[in-house]
C-alpha cells in the first residue's frame, strides 16, 4: 500500500499537470478515464480559486489587463509560484517580480511597480491596529535629542517608489472614481501606503519624502533619515511630512537610537 505521502504526491502532480495523472489514477478506485476527468474538476477549482485570490489582491492590475488575460496570468503565476499557505491572503507575494520578467507583460513596464503598490495595499488592509502617539509627545523631545529620535510608524505603512505614475493609475481604477482619467506617463510617482484607522490610504510622496520614510522604516534615526531625504531633494518639506504622519495617526511609537 503506498503511504499517504506517496498518494498525496501523485495527486498533487496530477493537479499541477493534466498530463501527469497516471500515478494518481493508479491510486483511485473505479474507471481510470472517469477518475482522470474527475481530477480535472479539482484542477479547475484550484485554478479558479487562485485566480480569484490573486484578483482580490491585485484588482487594478486585473482591470488594466482584463479578466481573460489576468486569469491566464494567474495560471502562469500559480505554476511558477505555487501557494505555500493555507491562508490565501498570503498568495501573490511574488506577483510584481513575476510580471517584471513574464514575456507577455513586458509591454507594460509600469505593471511591476503597480503590483508592488497593490500588494502594499493588500498587506496594509490586515495590518495590526495602531494606537497613535500624541503629537505633544513629539513636541516634547528636547532639540538635542531629536537627531537620535526613532519614529515607529503604524504597521502596514510602506513606501512604493516608481519611475511610472503608479499612484495615478491606482487612483483612476478605484471603485467610484469619477474624475478625469488622464495620465501623464512622463511623471515618476512615489506613494505612501498606510492604514488610517480601518481605511487603507495611498497618498503622494515627493522623492525626498519617500527617502525619509524609507529610512525611518529601515530603523534610521531622525537625523540620518532627514539627511538621506535632503540628499535626494534639498527642498524636501519634512516638517510638513511629519505633520501629515501625525494627523493621519501613523506615528505609533517613539524611541531613541541610544536607548
Amino acid at each position: 500500500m503506498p503511504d499517504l505521502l506517496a498518494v498525496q504526491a501523485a495527486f498533487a502532480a496530477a493537479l499541477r499537470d493534466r498530463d501527469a495523472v497516471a500515478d494518481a489514477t493508479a491510486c483511485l478506485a473505479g474507471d481510470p478515464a472517469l477518475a482522470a476527468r474527475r481530477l480535472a474538476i479539482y484542477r479547475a477549482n484550484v485554478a479558479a480559486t487562485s485566480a480569484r485570490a490573486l484578483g482580490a489582491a491585485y484588482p487594478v492590475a486585473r482591470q488594466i489587463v482584463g479578466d481573460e488575460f489576468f486569469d491566464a496570468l494567474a495560471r502562469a503565476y500559480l505554476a511558477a509560484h505555487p501557494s505555500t499557505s493555507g491562508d490565501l491572503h498570503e498568495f501573490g507575494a511574488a506577483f510584481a517580480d513575476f510580471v517584471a520578467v513574464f514575456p507577455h507583460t513586458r509591454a507594460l513596464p509600469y505593471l511591476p511597480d503597480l503590483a508592488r503598490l497593490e500588494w502594499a495595499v493588500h498587506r496594509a488592509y490586515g495590518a495590526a491596529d495602531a494606537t497613535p502617539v500624541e503629537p505633544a509627545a513629539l513636541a516634547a523631545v528636547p532639540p538635542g535629542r531629536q537627531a537620535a529620535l526613532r519614529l515607529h510608524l503604524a504597521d502596514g505603512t510602506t513606501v512604493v517608489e516608481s519611475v511610472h505614475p503608479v499612484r495615478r493609475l491606482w487612483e483612476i481604477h478605484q471603485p467610484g472614481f469619477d474624475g478625469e482619467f488622464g495620465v501623464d506617463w512622463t511623471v515618476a510617482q512615489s506613494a505612501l501606503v498606510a492604514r488610517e484607522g480601518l481605511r487603507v490610504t495611498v497618498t503622494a510622496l515627493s522623492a525626498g519624502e519617500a527617502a525619509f520614510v524609507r529610512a525611518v522604516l529601515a530603523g534610521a534615526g531622525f537625523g540620518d533619515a532627514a539627511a538621506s531625504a535632503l540628499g535626494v531633494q534639498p527642498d524636501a518639506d519634512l516638517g510638513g511630512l511629519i505633520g501629515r504622519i501625525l494627523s493621519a495617526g501613523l506615528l505609533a511609537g517613539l524611541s531613541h537610537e541610544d536607548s
Partner: protein
Amino acid sequence: MTMSPATAVGIGLRQPHYREAFERRPALGFVEVHSENFFHEGGASLHALERAREAWAVSLHGVGLSLASADALAQGHLARLKRLVDRIEPALVSEHLCWGGVGGTHFNDLLPFPYHRESLALLVERVDRVQETLGRRILVENLSAYVEFRDSEMTETAFLAELARRSGCGLLLDVNNLYVNAANFGFDAEARLAELPGDAIGEIHLAGHHVGEDGLVDTHDARVAPAVWALYASACRRFGPRPTLIEWDAQLPALDVLLDEAARAAAIVGGAPAGEGGDA
C-alpha cells in the same frame, strides 16, 4: 452572543452582505465565516467580525488547516487560528476532513485521501493537537469528493465515527456533501447516515450543488436541491435537531435568498423530534 438551541439556523456571512446584515440584523441563530478570512493582525475584516459577534453567535469554519496532509501540521496556521478563537470566542469551531497541500505547496482546496488505519491514526493525533492548542472541542466535516481511493478500508462516515470516538471531536455533517458523494460514487446516503454517531454531530451544513457531465460538483452557488432537503429532513428525524447552516460562497444572491433558505431549514429542524440528543 451565544448559540443555545439545537434548532438554531444560521447563514454563511460573506463580505458583500455585511452592510445589509448589520443594518437589518436578521434574527439568526448564528452566522458562520471562514476562519482564514480573519487571520489578519487587525483592520476592517476583524472589525466587521467583532460587529457580527455582537449581533449573533459566530461559528468559525476553517478551510486551510490541511489536517490530513502528509506534511507536518502547519504550526503558524494553527497559531493564527488560536489567536482568532481567543479573540472571537466563537460558539463553534470546525475544520474539514481533508488535506490541502503537500511537499510545502498548497492547493487551497479541500482534497480527499484514503480512509485506512494509518490515516485514521494521523487524524486522531492531529485533531488531538488542534483541540489541545485551542483548548476546546472542534467539529470535523465530511467532504464532498469526486474520487475515491483504492486503499480505503472503511467509508468516510465510519472513519469520522472512529475519529470522533478516539479524539473526542464533534462532527459537522454536511448533508449536501453526503448527497453529492452518494451520487458520485453510487452509495446509499441513508445507510451512511446510520454509520454516524448522532451524539457527536454538533452542526449540519446545507448548500447547493451543480450537476455536471462527470458527476455532481459541490459549488455552494445555488439553492439547496430538493433531494438534499429530503436527506436533511431524514437526518433531523434520525439525530434530532442540530444547529444548521446555509452555506453560499459563489455567485452570492441577495441576502433575502439566504434568509429564505434559512427559514426553510428552520421549519424542518424546528419540527424534528428530540432524537439522540447531542451537546450543541
